[in-house]
């Protein structure tokens, strides 16, 4: 080999070795990044399983991005000049190869240059490329291997929602789109079933008979109203009846629930059963009524969602199952009906809540909520013995609205405490409710057009 060939050969070897090491490093970084993204996607999938189409699309996108990155990096090639500079530095040749390569490309007639090229070729023969640029496994390859293992491990986590992508498993194709239509009636079925069981246990109490009947019929809102009425009249009940009611509540609270939606109502019933004082049972019963009211609203909302979904859904997608629709009886009253193919929701009686304008519907919902609050306010005026007036006065500022004229109330509060109490404060959880109420009753008529 001539001196020129020796030098060029060395530079090509060095350039290839540098490029290979660089590519190995960059591709392992790319693999790590892609797998990290895939792992995040897999973790998401563990909690909310994706369809095969989604998984496939994401995988393809990541694969395409990685392929583009890889192609881009593979196409980047270093020059021989750069290789010369790098090998000079690495092998401590003090620009010998770089200079020789430049003179090879820019020949001049000089004995000094010829001699320099000869010396450079000699140095090039002695360069150990393997030693200068050994085939190292980059640290990033360990990261890539770790991400591969982690990704594999995630696919074998034994959880109910986990699908093993490596075995081409994924969530059922229509699971996510059909969820509102399919799950809502099933939920209601389970809730109704549990409510019937609760009703059976409440029947043990004479006082809770009406409430139990309403629950058994699925009219949760009516059951809530019954419970409120009962709470207002609890002062007239005997201690035996109250004890009986407590026992019934305890039994009902012990009902095995199928759905989380029932949790608040049953929890309130349990608290009612634990209330030791007769005065306290009123509060607890009202809380239970409120929980039942909220359950009724949830059921109503679910029924409307299911109905509106089914209205726009094709026949093929609708299985022959039961859906629950809102009847005319009022908000929260549930009625089973069979949906027969497309527009099954349209079987609801005309004039049902689902058919009402949105503003009026919201107003009706609000009516129930505000009614519950009004009951609490009125409660202060009823059922209180006259002899407790002094106590009432002292507690007037601590509890609900007082019927005593504010000028007659003697207060031992400090000015700072009074200032605090005088502030108009709307509880946070009621703000949206009140806002919705005023928006619902806002006049919607169009005024005269402005010019």
């Amino acid at each position, binding site marked *: 080999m001539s001196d020129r060939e020796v030098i060029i050969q060395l530079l090509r070897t060095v350039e290839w070795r540098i490029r290979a090491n660089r590519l190995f490093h960059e591709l392992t970084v790319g693999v790590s990044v892609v797998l990290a993204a895939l792992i995040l996607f897999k973790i998401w999938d563990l909690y909310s399983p994706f369809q095969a189409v989604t998984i496939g699309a994401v995988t393809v996108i990541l694969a395409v991005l990685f392929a583009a990155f890889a192609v881009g990096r593979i196409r980047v090639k270093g020059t021989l*000049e*750069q290789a010369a*500079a790098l090998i000079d530095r690495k092998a401590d040749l*003090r*620009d*010998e190869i*770089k*200079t*020789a390569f*430049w*003179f090879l490309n*820019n020949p*001049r007639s*000089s*004995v*000094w*240059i*010829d*001699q*320099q090229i*000869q*010396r450079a070729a000699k140095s090039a023969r002695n360069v150990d490329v393997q030693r200068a640029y050994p085939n190292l496994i980059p640290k990033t390859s360990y990261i890539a291997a770790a991400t591969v293992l982690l990704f594999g491990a995630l696919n074998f986590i034994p959880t109910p929602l986990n699908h093993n992508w490596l075995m081409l498993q994924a969530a059922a194709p229509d699971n996510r789109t059909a969820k509102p239509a399919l799950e809502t009636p099933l939920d209601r079925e389970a809730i109704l079933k549990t409510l019937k069981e609760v009703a059976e246990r409440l029947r043990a109490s004479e006082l809770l008979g009406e409430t139990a009947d309403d629950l058994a019929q699925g009219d949760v809102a009516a059951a809530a109203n019954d419970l409120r009425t009962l709470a207002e009249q609890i002062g007239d009940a005997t201690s035996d009846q109250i004890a009986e009611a407590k026992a019934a509540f305890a039994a009902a609270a012990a009902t095995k629930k199928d759905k989380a939606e029932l949790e608040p109502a049953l929890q309130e019933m349990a608290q009612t059963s634990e209330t030791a004082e007769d005065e306290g049972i009123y509060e607890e019963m009202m809380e239970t009524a409120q929980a039942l009211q909220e359950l009724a609203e949830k059921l109503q909302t679910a029924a409307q969602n299911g109905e509106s979904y089914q209205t726009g859904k094709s026949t093929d997608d609708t299985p022959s199952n039961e859906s629950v629709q809102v009847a005319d009886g009022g908000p929260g009253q549930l009625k089973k009906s069979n949906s027969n193919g497309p527009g099954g929701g349209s079987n609801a009686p005309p004039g049902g809540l689902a058919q009402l304008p949105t503003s009026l519907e919201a107003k009706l919902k609000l009516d129930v909520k505000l009614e519950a609050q009004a009951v609490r306010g009125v409660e202060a005026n009823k059922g209180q013995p006259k002899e407790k007036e002094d106590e009432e006065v002292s507690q007037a500022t601590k509890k609900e609205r007082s019927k005593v004229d504010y000028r007659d109330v003697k207060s031992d509060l400090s000015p700072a405490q009074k200032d605090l109490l005088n502030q108009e404060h709307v509880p946070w959880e009621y703000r949206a409710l009140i806002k919705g109420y005023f928006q619902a009753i806002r006049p919607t008529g169009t005024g005269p057009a402005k010019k």
Partner: protein
Amino acid sequence: MSSVVDQQVETFQEQFKRVQQQVSKVIVGYEEIIDGVIMSLLANGHVLLEGVPGLGKTKLVSTLSAVMHLKFSRIQFTPDLMPADITGTNIVQQSGEHKILQFQAGPIFANIVLADEVNRATPKTQSALLEAMEEETVTVGKQTHELEPPFFVLATQNPIEMEGTYPLPEAQLDRFLMKLKVDFPSVSNLHTIVNRTTTVKEPTVERILGQGEVLQMRKTVRSVPIARPIQDYAIRIAMATHPRPPYAHALTMRFVRHGSSPRGPQALVFLGKIRAILNNRLYVSCEDIRSVAYGVLRHRILLNFEGEADRIDTDTIIKGILESTPETV
């Protein structure tokens, strides 16, 4: 063919080493200064030595001239020194019945000229050196006289006791190939100096290099090839001394008023070639350029007001430039 090159390199190295050894007999320490002075002589340049009095600057130059078979003259620059005292003048002489003007050569007509404390003379007198240093000619009246090669000016100046001195103008500073700083010797070197100079036997030097050898060595230096990437590196370093983008360093932008002239990269390459030969290489490397950059560029960088006020050392700027300038673009 290659043996000729090897022989030239070997001869160069040997002669350089012999001069170095002879000068080192008298001058203790200062190996870098000695190398710089000899390299400047071989690169056809001039040297400005800066240091406090008593460090042996003048002794170094006189020793160097003693080592070589070259004509040496010494000019002590004083405020009342006139240009004619350096260049020479025409004097009237009786020739038979006629009186003729005859040129009486000044001390500048030598091979090695020591311009001692050059900054003590007036600018007018200092300027008398300009033509000689660059053109190697002296013009007196209407006649131009050529100086005999090699012509080498070694000027010294004292960085302290600046009162009553005239700092060298930029034009004259630029004509010096290198500016070498003579620092105070170490304790061990002081012991050696005292021992050598306070005993009966004083060191003597041999004359080992003549005019022909020096000129041959200069020719050898010019033969060393330099690749474009290395030359580009030298030029980029010189360009980085200018406070203008795209090459300017941050320190340059802030503290420098004016950077190196084209003589800067010329000097870098010349001295780089000598250093390459001394390191037994037939080409110039970036390391050669870096090693001579301080001596070449420190007097070519003119500080601005902020740089002067902050007492910025030009070596600091050069260090920043060398650290930030990549070898390859």
